[in-house]
Structures are given as C-alpha cells and as structure tokens.
C-alpha cells in the first residue's frame, strides 16, 4: 500500500483553494485536510489542480515505428505533459485493425503504467478505406475499444463511412474522422492561400476539410450515429460544426494546440517541423478556432502528438512527413494561446482537455472525473508561472520534432497522479516522495 | 608635410610635361593608345590625349583613348568588400601592336598596375606598355616602375594621397593626409 498524499493549498480548477487527500488511489477528502500518519505532504500553493488530462488523439508509433516513439517513451511524454490517459491511433504497423493488435497496445500500456493507453481501432482494414475492420471484435476485446478511426487517412468513401457510422451503434462506439478530401489534396503540402502561392508549395484547400466535415455531419444525422471530427483547422469547419450542433446532430469536434497557436506563415522557413496534417492555416482560422473552443462549439483539445524520426523531418519540405510532437507542450501552448489571453479559464481547460475527451472516449467512469471525494485520484498539478523554453532534445519522446523549439511557454504540468500514483514529478517534488 | 601638395596649375603643368615626354619617347604618337584606369586615371588619360593632340596634329584624342577596369584582375578581391565592376573600352582597332600608355592617378604598391598588365594581356598584344602617373608615392611591392611621373611625393605608409580631378570632384588637387 502506498503512502497517503496530501496536496496542500492547491487551486482547484483555478477557482477555490483547497487541499486534497489521496488514499489508495482515491480522493478521500477535499477541503481542510488533516494529514494522516506517514502521509506525503505536498505544498501546492500557487498550483492549479486539474483532473488528469485525457488526450483523444495520440500517435505512439508502436508497433512498427519504434525508432520514432514507443508506448513507453510516449507514455513518459504523456505523464510529463499532465496526461493520465491517451487514445493511441490505429495507424501503426501492423495497423490496429484487429483485436490482437489493440489488446497488445492496451496491455503494453498497462505494463508501463504511466498513463492509461486506450487503443483506437481502425475503421477499415489496413486503413485502406475498402473493407470495414472487425470493429465488434475490437469493442469486445480486453481493450474495450469504443473509438474507431483511420486517422492519417480519411474514411473517404461515403458508403463505407455510412456503414461504419451505422455499425458502431451496435456497441455505442463513435467514428473519429480525419476530414480530408483525398482528391483535393493530392500532393498538397500546406494551406492553400497567399503563402502557398508565394512559396510554390502545393496548396491544401480549406474546402478539402470542410466538405468532408459537412458530409459526415449529414451522414451522422441520417443514420442517427455519433461522429467525432478530429483536428478542425478552418473557420469554415467551425461554422459547419456550429450549424450541425444547432441542428441537433451528434457531432463533436477537436482542435489541436498547434492549430490554435501557429499559422501558415511558419512555412516561410521551409522547416518541415511546421509541416502537419491538416496544415497550419491563417490567423483568421486560428481566431475562429479559439472562439469556437471558448464558446463550446469545439468540444476538446487533443494533441495529435505525431513523433517522426529525424530523417523524416531533416529533409525537403515536400519529402518530409506530416506531424509534430504535442504531449509535453500542449498545456503550455494552451495557457499561452487561450488562458493567458483571457479566452479560457482553467475550469474550461479541465472541460476541454479532460472531461469532454473522457466522455467522448467512453472512459468517463475512470477519467475526467470531478476533483471530489470518492473519485479516482487522477490529478494534474499545473504551475502556471513555471515558464520554460522548449528544446526538442529535452523532451521525453524518442523523436524531437517539436515546432516550439526555442519558444518560451508560460507554464507546465509539475506533477501527475494516475490512480494516486505519481507518474511524473518535477524536481521540486521529488524530495517530498523520497 | 601634409595638405595640398599640387594645385590645379601644378597638375596642368605636370600633364603637359608628361604629354611631351610620351611623344618624345615614342617618336611621335601615332601608335599610342592611352588607357585610363578608373576612376581618376580615366579623366587624366583624356586630358593627356588632348594635350598630345595639340602637339601631334595627326593624333585623334577620342579614338586613341580608352578605359581599363582592372577589378576582375585584382589580387585582393577576397580581402575587401565586393567592388562594382567598371567599364572597359578600347579603341575599335584594338591594341595589338600599339603602344599602350596606362594612366593612373597615384602609383603606390604596383598591384593595380600588375592587374592592369594582366587585363591588357586578355585584350591583345601591344608592342609596348608604358605607365604614366600623376603621383608616385613610393612603397612598391612589385618590381614595376613608372615611365612618366607628374610628381614624386615621399610618403609614410600610413599617409593617404587623394587626387581630386575637376571632372569627378569639382577641383584639381593632390592632397596628402595623415593616416588614421
């Protein structure tokens, strides 16, 4: 049995100051807490306590690209970033399109124990968009998969998409769509607009995303199913989601930290660290996404953490892989882009980065729970005054492809507890647990 | 001694004397081509040519004068900021078998003239090359000497000799300055 932990004087959700008692993986008291005998007492004055963060969109690369990331290194990066659960995308090699692969990923996550790894199953066999994968088997496996996505690729065929949406109703699953019209984006390298015109990089039109978002919202309405749209990147997509929700369609949407901070202007460096799918858009898109995150049109913030080996980024823009790291920088980026600018409170952050993703991922019995007595002790402590400068080489991921290298972020997670066990402690706390 | 070493009258007299010396040395001026080294050698070459034409009626000052830009032949191109390349013009008839008189304002280390000799080699094969300079300030670094000198001015290495010409500077003067 591990020792009880008292987190003293934390600011719960950035609102009220209270202490939290954790015993046997559960929060047993909140408020005025008397430390039991032998308890670890942590002074959390000035720190924000949030429910452990839940990332609905992570690439752990194992199996297949262990040179870029493994479940272990990715779990470590997640715990350092304040996450207690991550949803691992299916585009591994082999693809997570069978019960065998998702169980392997799930149990490897358990073994490592730094973060709950929930595998996302592939919608189609091999992500090829041709045949539905055995979603039922994955749903009924040990991994208990509820979210299905061909992420990296769009479920492009409207008939396949319709069938998938209908089929997952069987086990209350959802289709998580990577909205990208494949024909409109053949060879596309960056947002199609003034910057792409000047740089001579093949354009990726906003409509390639928006048309799929609109189609899938209508399909979800038609078959009465649930669709989650990943990484919204354009103002137009926001409008469509807003419209769909107003219409009562069961659609949820996510935005990534990078689409909330960076723009296509970054491509002027031709540095492939800024190459991502969907591409970084314009400032007016960023502004629309921020407004949508603040007003609830966008339900969650997810990282789309996408590690790549150095050789896949240290090359020509057009030859480079899409994607960037995100797990360790997400909190700091969100604080910089949205909290410090007054668009979000920490309460909102808890909703966007923990409660809503847990609900969409159907793990809200374990994660995204209130910081209250009787709840599992999944807790993230954030120091909003711990400014730090990002250095890709210092991150826990095996890869180092962060677009924020050299950027100062205002804050970061300083401690993460998963069911009462510290999975990450910044140096200031290591002594307390010794 | 610093300050103005030669005034307009001094310069005029020196050029007149050099013109006579050129004619005398070459038994006339029929084969003579004057190539001024930009910037200030060029107006000096034109003035010399006019004076020669006054002495030798058959000498066409315009035809026999040209410009020789030596930038691309310098041996210190990589030690100084990038220089703009000036114009090179030679008489239409070329310089083969001519007597080329190089004209420069200040004769110093000899490196400019070395570069000029290389440049001439790419333009043709003159019968002879001679050197006329308004000022010889010494400190040669190469075995090159002047044929016609307006004035020898002993200088310290650190000193500067500035030649001003009416055409570019609005006055004629040779000024010796202390080094920085």
């Amino acid at each position, binding site marked *: 049995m591990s020792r009880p932990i008292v987190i003293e004087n934390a600011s719960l959700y950035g609102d009220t100051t209270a202490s939290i008692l954790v015993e046997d993986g559960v929060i047993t008291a909140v408020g005025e807490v008397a430390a039991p005998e032998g308890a670890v007492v942590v002074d959390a004055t000035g720190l924000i306590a949030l429910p452990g963060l839940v990332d609905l969109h992570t690439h752990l690369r194992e199996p297949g690209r262990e040179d870029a990331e493994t479940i272990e290194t990715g779990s470590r990066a997640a715990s350092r970033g304040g996450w207690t659960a991550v949803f691992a995308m299916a585009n591994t090699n082999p693809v997570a399109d069978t019960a065998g692969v998702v169980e392997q990923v799930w149990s490897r996550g358990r073994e490592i124990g730094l973060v709950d790894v929930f595998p996302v199953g592939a919608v189609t066999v091999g992500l090829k968009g041709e045949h539905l994968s055995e979603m039922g088997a994955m749903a009924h496996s040990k991994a208990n998969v509820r979210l299905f996505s061909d992420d990296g690729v769009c479920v492009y065929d409207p008939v396949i998409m319709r069938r998938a949406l209908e089929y997952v109703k069987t086990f209350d699953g959802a289709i998580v769509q990577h909205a990208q019209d494949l024909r409109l984006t*053949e060879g596309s*390298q960056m947002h*199609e*607009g*003034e*910057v*792409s*015109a*000047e*740089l*001579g*990089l*093949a*354009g990726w*039109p906003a409509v390639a995303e928006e048309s799929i978002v609109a189609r899938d919202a209508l399909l979800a309405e038609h078959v009465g199913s649930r669709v989650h749209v990943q990484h919204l990147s354009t103002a137009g997509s926001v409008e469509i989601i807003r419209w769909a929700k107003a219409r009562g369609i069961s659609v949820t949407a996510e935005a990534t930290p990078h689409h909330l901070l960076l723009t296509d202007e970054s491509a002027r*460096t*031709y*540095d492939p660290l800024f190459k991502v799918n969907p591409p970084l858009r314009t400032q007016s898109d960023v502004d629309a996404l921020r407004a949508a995150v603040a007003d609830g049109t966008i339900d969650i913030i997810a990282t789309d953490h996408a590690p790549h080996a150095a*050789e896949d980024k*240290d*090359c*020509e*823009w*057009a*030859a480079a892989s899409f994607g960037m790291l995100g797990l360790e920088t997400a909190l700091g980026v969100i604080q910089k882009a949205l909290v410090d600018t007054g668009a979000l409170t920490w309460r909102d952050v808890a909703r966007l980065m923990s409660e809503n993703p847990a609900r969409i991922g159907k793990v809200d019995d374990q994660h995204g729970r209130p910081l209250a007595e009787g709840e599992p002790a999944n807790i993230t402590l954030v120091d909003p005054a711990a400014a730090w400068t990002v250095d890709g080489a210092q991150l826990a991921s095996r890869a180092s492809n962060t677009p924020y290298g050299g950027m100062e972020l205002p804050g970061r997670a300083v401690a993460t507890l998963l069911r009462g066990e510290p999975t990450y402690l910044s140096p200031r706390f290591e002594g307390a647990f010794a | 001694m610093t300050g103005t070493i030669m005034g307009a009258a001094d310069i005029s007299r020196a050029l007149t004397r050099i013109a006579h010396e050129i004619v005398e040395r070459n038994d006339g001026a029929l084969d003579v081509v004057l190539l001024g080294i930009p910037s200030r050698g060029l107006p000096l070459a034109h003035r010399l040519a006019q004076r020669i034409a006054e002495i030798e009626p058959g000498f066409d000052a315009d035809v026999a004068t040209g410009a020789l*830009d030596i930038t*691309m*032949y310098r041996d210190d*191109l*990589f*030690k*100084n*900021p*990038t*220089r*703009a*390349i*000036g*114009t*090179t013009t030679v008489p239409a008839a070329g310089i083969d078998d001519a007597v080329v008189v190089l004209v420069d304002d200040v004769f110093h280390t000899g490196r400019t003239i070395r570069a000029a000799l*290389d440049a001439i*080699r*790419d*333009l*043709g094969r003159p019968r002879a090359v001679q050197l006329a300079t308004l000022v010889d300030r010494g400190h040669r670094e190469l075995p090159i000497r002047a044929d016609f000198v307006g004035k020898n001015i002993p200088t310290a290495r650190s000193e500067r000799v500035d030649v001003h010409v009416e055409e570019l500077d609005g006055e004629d003067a040779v000024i010796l300055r202390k080094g920085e």
Partner: protein
Amino acid sequence: MRHLLSTKDLSRDDAILILDTAAQMAATQEREVRKLPTLRGKTVVNLFFEDSTRTRISFEAAAKRLSADVINFSAKGSSVSKGESLKDTALTLQAMGADAVVVRHWASGAAYQLAHGGWLHGSVLNAGDGTHQHPTQSLLDAFTMRRHLVSDPTGADLAGLTVAIVGDVLHSRVARSNVHLLHTLGAKVVLVAPATLVPVGIEPWPCDVVHTLDQALEAYEIDALMMLRVQRERMTGGGSAFFPSPAEYTRLFGLDGDRLRRLPDHAIVMHPGPMNRGLEISAEAADSPRSVIVEQVANGVAVRMAALYLLLAGEEGAQ
C-alpha cells in the same frame, strides 16, 4: 550578397547592380580571350537534383569563364524515392570546400534550406527550386528586356515597360521570380493564364491577371511577351488535367503569327526554353526577328557570371 535564393529578396539597387555587372561581363564575352582570372581558386559546385542540362551548362560556362573550379554533382533522388538526403549532400559539399553551391532541386524551398540549414558555409545560388523561384532566369530576362527596350541601359530599371507572362503560372518558378523582379524594377506585369493555372492566393502579387492572350493584347501595350513552357503532365491525367486539350490551349494562349503582328513594333518575344513549338508558340513566332529567345541563352551566361562574381568576390562576411 551572401546567397541568391529569391528575387523577392532583391532591392532595386541590388537588381540593377547585378544587371550592370552582367553588362560588363557580357562585354568581356565579346573578346578573343573570354576567360577572366577573377574567381581563381574558388570552387563552385553545380548540385543538380533535377536534370537540366541547359541550366547546368550555363552555370558551368559562367563559373569557368571566371576561372573558378567547377564540380558537377548530380544527386539522384526524386519526390517519390528519396536518395541521399539534402543534409548529407550539403555536409559532403562542405567537406569538399565548396565556396558556392548552385542548386537545382525538385522541391520548393530546397535552396533556402541549404542556405539556412547550418550545414554549409558557402554561398547558395538557387538555380530553380520546385515551383518556387529561379532568380537567375528572371535576371537574364530583365537583362534582355533592358538591352532591347531601354535606350540608356546602364544603371537603368524597367520603369514604364509592360511585360506579359503567358502560361502555367501556378507551377512556374520563372513566373514567380519574374513577377517580383520586374515589379521591383518598375515594370508592369500582366499574367495571362487559364484560371486553373493561376495560384489561389495570388491577390497580393504586384501584377494584373487576365485569362486569354487576346484579352491581354487588346488591353495592354505590351513591350515584352514571355511565353512559358507547358509541361506535358499538366495536360494529361484525365480528370486532373488543367485544361481540356492542347488544341484549346493553343487557341486561347498560343502565340502565332497573327497575334505576333498585333504586338507593338518594338515588342520582343521571350521564352525560357525549351519550347514546345506548335503548342505555346508557333514556329513563325519563335523564329521571327522579334524573338530574343536565343539571345536569352547567351545573356544567361553573363548574368550568372555577375551573380557568381557578386556572391564570391567580396571578403567573407562583407556586404
């Protein structure tokens, strides 16, 4: 000048200095001895990731006439199959002691990456990167225009001239380079292309856009008409083709004798080569006395000599 990557980086004074220097270089090329000792001891590497014999030999001639040592490095590797990485190639060239790297690459931005990757100390001269820029091509175009259309060219810009560029603007590094350079030099630029071959986001470009050649001939007093090459892959690919047929392209955008005769008397016809005779330009137009296409090639050597001189002649680090 440390690198020559994009005409967008050039000020009016920079551009005129290059053109004036090119004029002096061109003058030396009329001499019996065309070789100059200027860049003796300097090493210029022609790094070509994309085949272009014409551009390579133009740069090779330019470097050799300035007495530089020339190493031709043909790096295989396409957008499909990656060969040796740009970084490894750059490190190799650095080890060889390249003072300047002339790079032609299929990827937009490769020259910029080579210049800013921290792998190389030498100057980088962009000889065409993807669909981005080809600065020496536009400099030789401007040089050719200035020679023909400006009465006292030395020190002059192209103010008052109207230049029409016709064809595949979307995929053209020549068009991108020319729009910025010609604008910087004071010329008016008119792009003539089917709307499928005009980039989305072109609005900030300092130029007009019209959609047929006849429209351009009517609306503008054109001093120079530049025909761009139509790449074969733009016409094929079924539903992905950018225009319905070669015949229709020729009908709307091709320069034939009739259209040639509608140009002002002094106007010149240009083409960066290689031409598709009968597609974007008829034989009559290509071979007419107004065509300066062959002269463009000769001017290319002079402009590249000027660029190499200006990049390499100064002391290291001097402006």
